[in-house]
């Protein structure tokens, strides 16, 4: 296997007049956990579907596990596990029947045993005959992951696997993802939770069909180029309002009892901090290392500013 699991160039999908995925270039290194971020409707699902041969791109090309995404969809499907955003196993089949169905689809040897083991690993022993439709959200998610994993794919495409799942289930889910990653499975996971993005080795951020930034997670804040100051002290609300109104401040985010004040213009921000320190002794200003959180909030707000006016993209 080469060291790139997915590589696409100029990947484009157009629905009607709307360019839903706009000339995306992306590389997913083999063995990594690759976070695919972006607000709702930004084109994540569409991109993932093109990567595994479920949708035909309108322009561009790409390879998944070395196979052409347009001409070799079957080879890709044999080797990829895809977990859809919406639960799409059969709700009127039991857990066992669903897993059995998937096992047959991939022609797994020792099917019965494989299915039984999957159920055990899921921690659903004894519930194999329960209808999949009656499972809770978190369990549906885990079942879907297990079904996508059963044929031991080299690449997992997970489309918002934790949307609408409670925090405990989310944490368990990510433990599982990291375990799979250690076993050498490449994982591309789309999400719009920032705390999940932090767990990824690589990150791509997409908004309104355009890939705004991508690269190793630790390089992202630097690439965004934000300078951030942390403020703490009493009565943060009036201060927050004041800072938001200041044109030199691009972003104010509240983290607990602190404000993170950021801008891409470090000089302007420094000026502001000096002024503030002079007139207001109550609050303490500390310059801090730029982090992913601020970077994403920044990306999201600027993306919204840049793209909403044309009125096309949905929220």
């Amino acid at each position, binding site marked *: 296997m080469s060291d790139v699991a997915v590589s696409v160039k100029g990947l484009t999908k157009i629905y009607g007049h709307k360019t839903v995925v706009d000339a995306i270039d992306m590389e997913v290194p083999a063995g990594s956990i690759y976070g695919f971020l972006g607000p709702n409707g930004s084109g994540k699902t569409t991109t993932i579907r093109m990567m595994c041969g479920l*949708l035909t791109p309108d322009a561009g090309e790409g390879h998944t596990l070395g196979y052409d995404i347009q001409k070799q969809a079957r080879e890709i499907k044999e080797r990829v596990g895809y977990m859809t955003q*919406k639960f799409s196993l059969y709700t009127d089949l039991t857990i066992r029947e669903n897993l059995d169905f998937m096992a047959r689809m991939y022609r797994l040897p020792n099917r019965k045993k494989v299915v039984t083991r999957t159920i055990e690993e899921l921690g659903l022993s004894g519930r194999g005959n329960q209808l999949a439709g009656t499972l809770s959200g978190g369990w549906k998610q885990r079942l879907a992951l297990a079904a996508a994993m059963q044929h031991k794919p080299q690449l997992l495409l997970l489309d918002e696997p934790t949307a609408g799942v409670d925090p405990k289930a989310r944490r368990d889910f990510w433990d599982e993802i990291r375990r799979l990653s250690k076993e050498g499975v490449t994982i591309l996971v789309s999400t719009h939770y920032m705390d999940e993005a932090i767990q990824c080795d690589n990150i791509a951020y997409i908004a309104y069909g355009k890939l705004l930034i991508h690269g190793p997670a630790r390089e992202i804040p630097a690439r965004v180029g934000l300078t951030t100051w942390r403020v703490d002290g009493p009565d943060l609300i009036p201060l927050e309002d004041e800072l938001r109104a200041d044109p030199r401040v691009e972003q104010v985010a509240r983290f607990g009892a602190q404000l993170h004040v950021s801008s891409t213009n470090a000089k302007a921000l420094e000026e502001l901090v000096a002024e503030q320190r002079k007139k207001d002794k109550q609050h303490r200003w500390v310059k801090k290392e730029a982090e992913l959180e601020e970077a994403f909030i920044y990306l999201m707000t600027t993306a919204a500013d840049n793209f909403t006016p044309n009125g096309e993209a949905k929220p």
Partner: protein
Amino acid sequence: MNLFSLSRFRAVLVKEFIQMRRDRLTFAMMIGVPVIQLLLFGYAINNDPRNLPTLLELGEESKVARAVVSGMDTSDYFDFQGFVFGPDAGDKALREGSANFVVVIPPDFERDILRGLSPELLVTADASDPTAVGSAVAALSGIVETAIAQTLDGPLTAVAGRPPPFSMVVHKQFNPEGRTATNIVPGLLAIILAMTMVLITAVAIVRETERGTMETLISTPVRSTEVMLGKILPYVLIGYVQTLLFLIMAKILFNVPFEGSRMAFFVGFNIYVVVNLALGFLISTLVHTQMQAMQASFFLILPTILLSGFMFPFAGMPGWAQAIGTAIPATHFLRIVRKIMLKGAQMADIAIDLRAIAIIGGMIVLIALLRYRRTLD
């Protein structure tokens, strides 16, 4: 890599069976629809058909004979198709369904009339459609009388006003008691199968798209043939159950005979069921919701009922309607069922109808496979 995976085919097959068993409503419908329809149509439908294809066997060349031919030609009831020679040819035409009537004008018909011997005019009627027979026989009598009056008015003025100078012998074949149910019931099988098979397959497949399970299904390496066969086969079995139920009820409630070859029926039935399922599959590739699938199936069932020869005798329909009717699988299966059940047809007698269904079916399967999307586009 091999072209067809038995494992995946079985995967779809097993899944379909389970889902079918759990979907109570569909299951109830599959059993309920044939029963209700049979009762409604079997007891309720009646009609008065026209333009029935008729053959003539001429025992003599006479003015009267010619007048009868032209009289039949202009009448609404008969569609004069040509001449036959000998009783076997007439029988064959009746069994194959290319004629509904064979009229025999015996030798010396004209001379015997003139002599006042009241010669016999022999009419053999396909009474498997009984409503057609009664009124047509009455009409025939009038036609012949007029023909005689026109051509022999001189010599016959003496006979005018008296009972007809000939007697008509009507020989009803295939359904001697002339019961409507005997005709409607076998035809109904074609309609019921068309209705349920098309609708159920279309809905079963569209359901995958609607519920989103199609995305998981096609994210696996499954092939379109595997999906199509795996989806269709369970419903073929349903078709078997429906038909068996139907045949038993037809026999018990309506005393409809089953005269012909069971083998021929079995062959025709299987082909017909598969064609309908393929049609359902095709519909599913054209619509997005179960509702649309239902509407499309309903849209198709109307011409099937009206133009297949089920409601109105096929031969009596205008040309355009016949053209549409010919493209409908039920038209041909209806003929097969009537021929076999009522007329004792064997394999050879239904070959022409089988060929027609096979051609229509082949086209449907081809389009369905081409339309089936392996992607979500």
